[in-house]
């Protein structure tokens, strides 16, 4: 079942020396990939990922992922926004150059609430979106999985686990046999040509 295909960065065939980048295992069902992920997690790998066409419930547990830190980014950004709005309005109209508007005091909290709220929401949203992108290292224009033709089906009906060669536990033969023991429908090695 487990065949092996080599791709190189330059698509230059078998000439020259190659270096492994990534092992890609393909599964036919969400259940298979779920249990395989548990297996990889227990084997102690760090630089690996699961690719599925839709969110698989409980996958974060199966992968042993920790709580996302996006919430903390959002909290800090939200508080920053709230404080920025407050300080800006206090400084401009309450302290530095008070203007009487509508007969209200220069420094009046009620009129600040909408701006403080809006800036809190704005910076929180920025924190959530860009924090998520940053933590996921997105957008990513190049990744070894792009060299796999089979990987295209990840957006359709196939499930994948990729283990990067940069992982400290990565060993070509050992990792491959470990992946094969998780009943994949296919295992693929992606490697690149080594420049002289």
């Amino acid at each position, binding site marked *: 079942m487990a065949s092996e295909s080599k791709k190189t960065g330059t698509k230059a065939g078998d000439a020259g020396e190659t270096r492994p980048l990534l092992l890609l295992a393909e599964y036919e069902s*969400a*259940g298979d990939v*779920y249990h395989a992920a548990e297996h990889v997690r227990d084997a102690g790998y760090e630089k690996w990922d699961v690719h599925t066409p839709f*969110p*698989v*419930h*409980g*996958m974060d547990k*199966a992968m042993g992922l920790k*709580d996302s830190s996006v*919430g903390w980014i959002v*909290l800090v950004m939200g508080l920053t926004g709230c404080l920025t709005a407050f300080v800006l309005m206090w400084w401009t109209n309450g302290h530095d150059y008070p203007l009487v508007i*509508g*007969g*209200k*005091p*220069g420094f009046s909290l*009620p*009129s600040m*609430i*909408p701006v403080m*709220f809006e800036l809190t929401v704005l910076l929180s949203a920025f924190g959530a979106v860009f924090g998520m992108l940053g933590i996921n290292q997105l957008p990513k224009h190049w990744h070894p999985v792009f060299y796999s033709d089979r990987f295209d089906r990840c957006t359709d009906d196939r499930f994948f686990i990729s283990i990067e060669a940069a992982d400290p536990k990565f060993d070509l033969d050992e990792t491959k046999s470990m992946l094969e023991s998780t009943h994949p429908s296919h295992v693929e090695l992606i490697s690149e040509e080594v420049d002289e």
Partner: protein
Amino acid sequence: MSKPAKKEGKAPTYRIPADSPWANAWKMAAGLGALGIAASAVGMFSDTHRFAFSWLFAFMFFLALGLGGLFFVLGQHLTGSGWGVPLRRTAEMLMAGLPVFLILFVPIAVNMHELYPWLEEHGAGHGEEHEGGHGGGHEGGEGHEAGGHEEHGSLLGFGTQAQAQEARDPWDVHPNEREPDTRTHTPEHAAHAEIMESKTWFLDHGLFLVRAGVYFLAWILLAYFFFTWSTRQDKEKGLALTQRMEKTAPFATFVFGFSLTFAAFDWMMSLEPSWYSTIFGVIYFAIAAIIGHAVIILLTLAMRRSGLLREAISVEHFHDIGKLLHGFIVFWAYVSVSQFLLIWYAGIPEESTYYHLRWWGGGGWMNISVVVILAGFVIPFFLLMSRNFKRNLPWLGFSAAWILVVQIGQLYWLVMPYADQTGLVETQLHLHWLDFAAFFAVGGVYMAVVLWNMTRFPLVPVGDPRLDRGLHHEVV
């Protein structure tokens, strides 16, 4: 994943066993209710004025709970929710207690003249004869004097009006406030004649009662149909009743929204007839949603503690309903600020009396205002913010209880300033034993109905086709 097959074995019936403390909880509620009614009956004769206000406060709080339950049920059907099916029956129990408010409304209908100043004025014309302001509006003022606001020190308050006035920044003094002439702030005063004139047809004794009848009819019908359909489905199973409930839900939501809004206008906003706020009904809706969600959390947590619903409701459900509670707290703060901001900006007399009464009006209400803002929004906003907090069930229960207590205070803050009023800008906060008596009377009767219904039906809609999906709900 996709291993829905848990332990097969015996399918749970989700019934309260006869030896469970929940089987007799309704008797305890009924007992408390009976005590409350007895005490309230005494108070009704000794201090009719205070009794009417205490009762209205308790009535509006528990009505909000029933309507909150109805809202949760409607929301579930509107969205075709699967996750909330195991929680829905608890909300339906709260909803099914709504008809009892028709009976609980009787003391309000009987004592309307104590509550609503527009009633005094009605038929008497816009009276020059009312000089002493609102207090003078009560015949002989016997109820009012018995209430005795002078000698009661405020239990909660530490600020007197003198202190409040001293602390004022000259910037903050509204032109209408510089000479606190209470006479210009009575609804009978010529300054309000135009507003009062335009409201005369609406604030009419007969029409008020007709409207109340319409609200109760709407709620009783909604509660009756959604409860009987759901409990009938327990036996019949099948998709047909789910489809019927989902088809009815949009129309029912309109009925719910309009009836709740106008009930809030009639029963709470018209306590100060010259005042108006178009968002007032939305605020009462937000309160109802908060109270409803908080009580659903507390009831289901309490049932889990005694071993019920453990197979049905998991931390995943609590996480999601915790999010909703958090959201509705933000919503409530948002609409409350929306009301305040427009009134604050304009600063015109007939609108600003409402906040004047609760801030500069003295008598300790300013403290409650601060507590409602901090303990009602700022603190629970952080209490329920984190995912881990919402999934920590003791923490969630504590937060829900905290929020519930603050919302009781908020209802008190909405109703009671008018109980001890001398003119529209001055009032005195003091707790009265009748507040507690009425709270136990209304709450005891209503909760007895809710808890009694719980012993008669399964605690989970066992016939709902989406139940299985709901039982295995998982927050991604």
